[in-house]
Each structure stands twice: as structure tokens, then as C-alpha cells.
């Protein structure tokens, strides 16, 4: 057998030739170069500032059935706390429940009637804490905090005539209800959300090369020479992938039921509406990228450039409410953020159309804006 012979007759000039050629080509491909520079900056900012694994400022709704000096002290302690942000003080139970289900509040803190009277009698009244455990990370972080808040709120009050209450265990009881995911199984949170992540990745990526591929292969010239309208190209090119997306959704639903035993508690119609608009939003986002990218390589990089903040700022990896407000503002503009809320509300929190409208609306708006941008960007000529 003959072994291949390696030549060690290396030339610095040949290496230099290739090195210089690579440098020139890198400089010519501006968008790629820009992404290479921007990517580390974006990652640093996102991971460094936006991501907070110690969730604070989670929205809470307080249901006050009693208004007295002790309960007021507790409320003001809650308000002052950085662990929770009291977004509303509700007097009726239905309203508080609605806020928890729609995700406007992550916690519901309920103080029962006759709390102070029973406290003084030593009957250990209950403070009810209902946490939205569809996001177990966000929930468990603040659960411990509530106990400390209660302790520090009541300590100055258990003084003088009420001094006898300053004992351990405390004269009240905090009862914790983990709603929507009582066992706190993180798969219940992650698996439905993964549907959104999978759709974002595949739908954006696949349509991001829709026009780029035509331009790169030279078939765009032929296409533009025909009387085809930009809208016709858009609809024709994206519709096939709606079916691909639907198939992916079916697969994720099947697997999450069979393997992870995730309950599907809400309205299927609401879910179908949410997932359809979400698929459309991603297809339009990808299509918009394909009107900008010059090569398929650029399209892939831009897809990743969109994908990264989607993962980090949507509430998929880290509790959305715990992010700084600028990061939340970016998150609100991402389709995945709204879809995650919809899918968690519907799958885990038995939500119907009424509950998801707050996210279905923005999602639809984002989709329409993407369509408008994509059509504006589409050039009918080769200019």
C-alpha cells in the first residue's frame, strides 16, 4: 500500500497569499463583520445586565379583606420590598384571580377577614400566598422573601400591649399555594415554552434564505422579469412553512403529553389562534431578514442575531419580570415573549381567549409591522 506523501516544502508566501485574501474578503463582507463585532457586545450586555437569576421586582397583587394597623404595616412593607412590586390592591377575589391567570401578577397575597382579631386571640390566622408556579424559578425565589417581609413588617408592631405576640413560631401562618404547577416541575414550564423556541429557530431560519437563495442562485432575475407581485411572492414563499410549523407544534404537543405528562388545561381554540399568529410572526421576521441579507451566510448570522435575544429576553430562560425595564421593553417587541405567555397561560393556567388577548394583540401587531417592513424592503427591480 502506498502512503500519501506529505510535502514539508511550505512557502510563507503562499500562506501569506491566502491570509491576505481572507482578510480582504472579510473586510468586503460588511454585515458579517458587523455581526462579529456586535455579537460579543450584545452577549455581554444581555448576560451582564438583563439576566438576573435572583428574581426581584416580581409583580404581586394584594387582596386586602381587612384594613387595620397591622395589615397596613404588612402592605407597606410589601410595597417597600424589592422582591415584589405591588401592582394592585384588589378588594375582590375574582379580580385578583384574573390578574394571576393573565400573568399581570406573579403572586397573589391574600389577607383574610378578621386577621387582626384572630391574631390577637392567638388563633394563628393564615396569610394566603398564591404563586404562579408555571414559572417555578420566579415563584420559589420570592416565596422565602415573603416570610422575611412579614417578619420585619410585624416585628415593630408586636410591641407594648402586643408584645406577647413576638414569639416563635410567629402568631400567623403563611400558607403557600403553588398554582398551575403545584409540584413545581420545571418541565411544565420549559416544555411548552420549547415549542416557541423550536418554532422561532426553524421558522425564522427557513424563511431568512427565501429570497437570499433566489438572489444568490440568479433565479431572482427571472422571477422579477415576470409580472409576479411582491405580496404574491411573500404569501407563496411563506405559506408552505405554516404547515411545517403546524407539524412541529403537533410533535411537541404529542411528546409533551406522552413523555412529560404535561396537562393541557385551557382552550384549544385560543391556543391554535396564538400559535398560528406566532408562526406567521416568525415567518415574516425571517422573510424580512431575507430581503436584507445578501448571502445565505448573512441570513444565517442575522437569524442567530435575532434568536439570541429571543432566548434570553423573552422569559424563556429567566423570569421576564425580574429583568430591568429596558430589557423588558426589548422583550415586549419579540414575538417569543408573547407566545411564551400565551402558551403557558393556555396549557397550564386554563386560559381562554379573554386571558390571552393582552398578548395576542401585540403579537398580531408585530406580525403586521413585519409584513409591512418586508413588503417595503422587497425590491421589484434589480437596482
Amino acid at each position, binding site marked *: 500500500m502506498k502512503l500519501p506523501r506529505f510535502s514539508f516544502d511550505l512557502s510563507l508566501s503562499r500562506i501569506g497569499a491566502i491570509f491576505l485574501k481572507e482578510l480582504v474578503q472579510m473586510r468586503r463582507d460588511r454585515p458579517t463583520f458587523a455581526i462579529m463585532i456586535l455579537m460579543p457586545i450584545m452577549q455581554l450586555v444581555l448576560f451582564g445586565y438583563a439576566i438576573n437569576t435572583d428574581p426581584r421586582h416580581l409583580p404581586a397583587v394584594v387582596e386586602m379583606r381587612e384594613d387595620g394597623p397591622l395589615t397596613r404595616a404588612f402592605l407597606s412593607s410589601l410595597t417597600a420590598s424589592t422582591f415584589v412590586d405591588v401592582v394592585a390592591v384588589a378588594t375582590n377575589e375574582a379580580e385578583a384571580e384574573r390578574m394571576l391567570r393573565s400573568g399581570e401578577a406573579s403572586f397573589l397575597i391574600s389577607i383574610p377577614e378578621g386577621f387582626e382579631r384572630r391574631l390577637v386571640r392567638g388563633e394563628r390566622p393564615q396569610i394566603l400566598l398564591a404563586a404562579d408556579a408555571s414559572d417555578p424559578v420566579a415563584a420559589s425565589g420570592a416565596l422565602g422573601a415573603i416570610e422575611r417581609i412579614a417578619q420585619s413588617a410585624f416585628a415593630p408592631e408586636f410591641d407594648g400591649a402586643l408584645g406577647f405576640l413576638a414569639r416563635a413560631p410567629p402568631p400567623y401562618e403563611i400558607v403557600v399555594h403553588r398554582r398551575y404547577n403545584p409540584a413545581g416541575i420545571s418541565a411544565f414550564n420549559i416544555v411548552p415554552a420549547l415549542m416557541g423556541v423550536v418554532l422561532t429557530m426553524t421558522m425564522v431560519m427557513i424563511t431568512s434564505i427565501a429570497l437570499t437563495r433566489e438572489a444568490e442562485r*440568479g*433565479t431572482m*432575475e*427571472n*422571477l422579477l*422579469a415576470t409580472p409576479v*407581485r411582491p405580496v404574491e411572492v411573500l404569501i407563496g414563499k411563506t405559506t408552505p412553512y405554516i404547515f411545517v410549523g403546524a407539524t412541529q407544534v403537533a410533535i411537541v404537543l404529542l411528546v409533551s403529553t406522552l413523555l412529560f405528562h404535561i396537562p393541557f388545561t385551557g382552550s384549544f381554540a385560543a391556543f391554535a389562534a396564538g400559535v398560528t399568529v406566532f408562526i406567521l410572526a416568525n415567518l415574516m421576521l425571517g422573510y424580512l431578514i431575507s430581503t436584507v441579507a445578501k448571502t445565505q451566510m448573512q441570513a444565517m448570522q442575522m437569524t442567530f442575531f435575532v434568536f439570541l435575544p429571543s432566548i434570553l429576553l423573552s422569559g424563556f430562560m429567566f423570569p421576564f419580570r425580574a429583568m430591568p425595564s429596558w430589557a423588558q421593553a426589548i422583550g415586549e417587541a419579540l414575538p417569543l415573549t408573547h407566545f411564551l405567555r400565551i402558551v403557558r397561560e393556555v396549557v397550564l393556567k386554563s386560559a381562554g381567549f379573554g386571558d390571552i388577548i393582552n398578548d395576542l394583540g401585540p403579537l398580531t401587531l408585530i406580525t403586521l409591522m413585519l409584513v409591512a417592513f418586508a413588503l417595503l424592503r422587497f425590491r421589484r427591480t434589480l*437596482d
Partner: protein
Amino acid sequence: MSEELVIDVRGLTKRFGGRTVVDQFDLQVPRGAIYGFLGPNGSGKTTTIRMVCGLLKPESGEGRVLGFDVLGESLRIKERVGYMTQKFSLYEDLSIRENLEFMARLYNLDRRAERVDEALSSLGLAERQTQLAGKLSGGWKQRLALAACMIHEPQLLLLDEPTAGVDPKARRDFWDQIRHYSAQGVTTLVSTHYMDEAVQCDSIAYIAYGKKLIDASTAEIPKQIGLHAWRVAGRPLQQAQALLEASGGVEMVARFGAEIHACARDEAKLERAVRQVQAEQPHLRIEKIEAGFEEIFIYLMTGAADNFR
């Protein structure tokens, strides 16, 4: 008059980043004509064709193509024009038939399957209809491209160097096809580098640096240019060629195998130059000949026609 002009545009101008690629271009093409575009690479032939079919927006200029405004009604024009691009621009991962059906659908044609069948058989592609377009040789790709841009029976054919890289037999078949369409009233605007193709055209526009330098019927071109030629033969020729090229009286020297054709527009100067070379190299035989299309097109393509400006 304007009824008969399929293309009637004036002052078309196109710039790319400050560089004027097509400058004040006028073009009048009567119905049924085969109109040739000649010019060196980068002279603006492709850009002009693209402006005519609405693929590029001219910076200025006006006119009508097939009776529609070239600036405002490009969709109407696109519906009635067949454009064959320089580079193969159909889908290589679709079969021949799928490509034709795709085009037929884009033009909203009725009797789609029938038309596709007709196109396949008239171009001799029927047996290969399930073959992927990407697997075809250059000549077959060109046939397919022509079939695709004829599927909607356009009144105007724009062909951008349609026969580049195609063998002579396939080129001849291609031109037979074009003449066949022309006889049916289809107007053709074709750019080419081949002089045997240029001769097939009814009229010729010669373009260089984005300007039209010559525009005449093919028969009139020799008269218009007024080129004179001498044949120089004998061995060796190498030195004679160098001497002729250096001579001021000769504008173009073209080698044809064992002979040289020396051309210029100034008859007297040319004769003097050739005779002087013969005096230096007595073994050469010289003879005055008629300047044919071949000489004229080499003369045009070598850029000597710049003098016409």
C-alpha cells in the same frame, strides 16, 4: 408609425454609484425585427435590456415598450415580454417540466398542461421533461430557457447573450427558432458577441461605454463604416503583423490563419502602409479585398469604433 414600433425609448440613462452605465440611449425597434446589440463587455447592453423590460429603473428617459410606458407600466410590459437572462436563471432543482409549469402559472396561463406539452415538443425536450434542469448541458439549458420565456407567447423577446457557451450546432438551431418566431411577428432584441449571429440580425446597434455609436440596418453597416481591407499572405507573417500594427495607416490587423487582413477607413493611407510593409518584406503577397462583416465586427469589437464619436 408608432403603431409599428415595438420599442420606442429615448434618452434612457442609468447610473450605478455615480458611474454612468447607459447614457442617453435611444432605441427604435419595429415589429417583427431581429435587432442585434453589439458591444464589448461592460458596455451597457445588459443594463439597457433590463431597463426595457422593467428590471431596472432608468434615472431619466422616456418611451414606450409594446405601447406601455416604460417607467410606469412595467407590470404590463413584463406580462408581454419574454426575457432570457445571460446566466441560466431557472431552478436547477426543478425538472424541465416543473420549470415550465412554474412559468406558466406565473403568467396565469390557461390550458397550462397543453401549453407546456407544446413547448416541450416544439423544442425537442419532451423525452427529457422529468430531468432536473441542473443536470442539463449548456445547449439544453439554453433551449429550456428559451422555452420558458416563450411559454406565455410574448410579443417581444429580450435575449441577453443567449448563446454564450453553446456549441455551433445548437446555436444554429437556436437562431432558426428565433427566425421562426420573427416570421410570426415576434420582435427580438438580442445581445451577442458572435459576428455570425450579428449578421443574422435585421438591424444592429453598436454600444460602447453606455453610448450607442452605430445604429443601422445590417446591410447598411459596411457602407456606414466605410472600411477598406487588404489581404497580406505569405510566410513568415509574424514580423509583417508587427509592422502593420505599428503602422499609422492601419487601424486594425486581424489574423485569419495563414493570412492577415489589414483594415482602415482611409483608403489611400491604408494602401500606402501595406505597400510599404511589402517593400520591406518582399516575400509577402498583397491584394485589396472587400471588407466583409467579419472584418467590420472585429473592427467594432476591438474598440476602434470609438472614433465614431
